[in-house]
């Protein structure tokens, strides 16, 4: 392997033992996960709630001892070199972990002290982080007065206090309003530009699609598929172009004509023709020209490209969106 990896796991496993009415019950939360996160990339761990995303991330952050398997985080062995890992990674949990009674500054300074940074440097760094994450207007107020987006900014700043090379973010934008979410995406991209590797969990398709270089989809404790958002979407196959015509006759003629493009699949349903074709955006102009030339006028046309939701649907047989409801 030539590329440097910041996270590498083999068969990472976590089994919880819970006692319900005296009966021991084993729950396999993570059933042997293999991950390879490259240095400098944004790696998205996508899956519905309860799929094992957070559990995996907690293991990688040293919070939770794994039941089995091996892992290297930031170059250190997860079983043996936990204190080294703690020094080299930042972790922002879903709850965040700001001390709501303290101000942003107090939170940041304490965090620095926990990493053994002396008071003077801690203060200076806190000021830098406040500027970096644009918290000037509220950093000297108690965190209990912050909006969701402001609090999240402080959470991430806390995670970046000791300038880790790897940042673990557990659902960084869950519960944020759309504006704050976009802002957070920008911040995460900026961190990447600064050379920080990011491993984030999310159950938002758009987030994984927009932000991540590599995605692993996890369901029920197992990784079902890995790849770049593009690769995953292409694995679904063709784009779909739907044509609506004024009557069934025209639709039928169009269907026969469009066979010329050797589509993956073409279906006729009343006045609608569905054309399944690779690179639909590129094929579209030519398709339109041909229809025009034969005087077959479509009333409406929609091009839909496969989304990561379709990817999830293909591999699990369920829609992620339904799961989240």
């Amino acid at each position, binding site marked *: 392997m030539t590329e440097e990896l910041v996270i590498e796991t083999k068969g990472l496993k976590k089994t*919880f033992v819970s006692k319900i009415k005296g009966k021991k019950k084993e729950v396999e939360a993570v059933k042997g996960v293999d991950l390879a996160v490259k240095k400098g990339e944004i790696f998205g761990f996508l899956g519905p709630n309860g799929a094992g995303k957070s559990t995996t991330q*907690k293991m990688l*952050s*040293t*919070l*939770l001892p794994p039941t089995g398997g091996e892992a290297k985080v930031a170059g250190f062995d997860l079983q043996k070199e936990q*204190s080294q890992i*703690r*020094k080299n*990674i930042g*972790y922002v*949990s*879903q*709850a*965040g*972990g*700001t*001390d*709501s*009674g*303290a101000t942003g500054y*107090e939170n940041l300074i*304490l*965090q620095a002290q*926990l*990493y*053994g940074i002396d008071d003077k440097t801690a203060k200076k760094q806190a000021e830098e982080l406040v500027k970096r994450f644009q918290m000037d207007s509220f950093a000297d107020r108690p965190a209990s007065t912050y909006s969701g987006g402001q609090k999240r900014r402080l959470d991430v700043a*806390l995670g970046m206090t000791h300038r880790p090379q790897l940042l673990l973010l557990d659902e960084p934008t869950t519960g944020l309003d759309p504006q704050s979410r976009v802002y957070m995406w920008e911040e995460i991209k900026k961190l990447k530009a600064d050379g920080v590797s990011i491993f984030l969990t999310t159950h938002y398709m758009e987030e994984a699609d927009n932000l991540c270089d590599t995605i692993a989809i996890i369901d029920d404790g197992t990784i079902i598929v890995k790849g770049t958002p593009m690769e995953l979407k292409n694995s679904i196959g063709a784009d779909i172009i739907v044509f609506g015509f004024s009557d069934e006759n025209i639709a039928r003629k169009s269907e026969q004509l469009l066979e010329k493009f050797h589509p993956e699949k073409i279906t006729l349903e009343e006045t609608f023709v569905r054309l399944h074709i690779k690179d639909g955006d590129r094929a579209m102009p030519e398709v339109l020209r041909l229809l025009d030339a034969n005087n077959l006028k479509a009333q409406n046309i929609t091009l839909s490209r496969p989304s990561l939701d379709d990817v999830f649907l293909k591999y699990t047989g369920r829609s992620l969106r339904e799961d989240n409801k």
Partner: protein
Amino acid sequence: MFIRNMRQTLRSPIFVFVSLFQPLLYLFLFMPLLNGLGGVPGLPAGKTVQIFIPGLLVMMALFGSAFVGFNLIDDIRSGVIERFLVTPVSRSAILLGRVLRDALVLLTQCVLITLVAIPLGLSVNVGGFLLSLVLYAMVSITMASMSYSFALIYRIEDPLAPTLNTITLPLSLLSGIMLPLALAPLWLQDLAKANPFSYAVNASRALFAGNFHNMDIIEGFVIVFLLMSVVFWWSLNSLRKLEE
């Protein structure tokens, strides 16, 4: 860690005084009752304040520190503890910072109550009092650690209060704080001997009287110290298991 927790307390210093209210009530509404009893075994006439205050201070350490677990649950829920756990800071510092804060709050209260009681006829042996503060601090650390252990195990408030009440009430009843155990039937006295804090109360009384040669003192210190060590270790263990 200690400073962070101290700051948390100082943000609402009013509570340090609110929690003083209960011991003050005992001082003014219960002690006069004992005065009337003066002369019964274990309670020499005219000296009730001398017997009662050292016990009351131990009780403050018992109750005052027993419910600190609630404030840890807040920190667990908001992810603060998790955030601390992923830093290289030592696990024991996370708890030590808290129990030392709790002990300091308690000692402040003990000093205040003692000052209030002096005009009521309490005579204080200064050296003994300072030593007894060490004892109260240890009792306080024991109770606080226990409280944190349960908080770490339950992680929700609901079962915490009944559990802590169930433990603290017999501990205080069986320590001879309210009334001297000399009044108790023999079986009750035997039961009290199993209560580590009754030794703390005896030691506290001996120290206030300045009886430094009294074996009760050494007994009290050794027993409370051992108990404190065990309970603190338990809380540390609970913290390590938090994520399981």
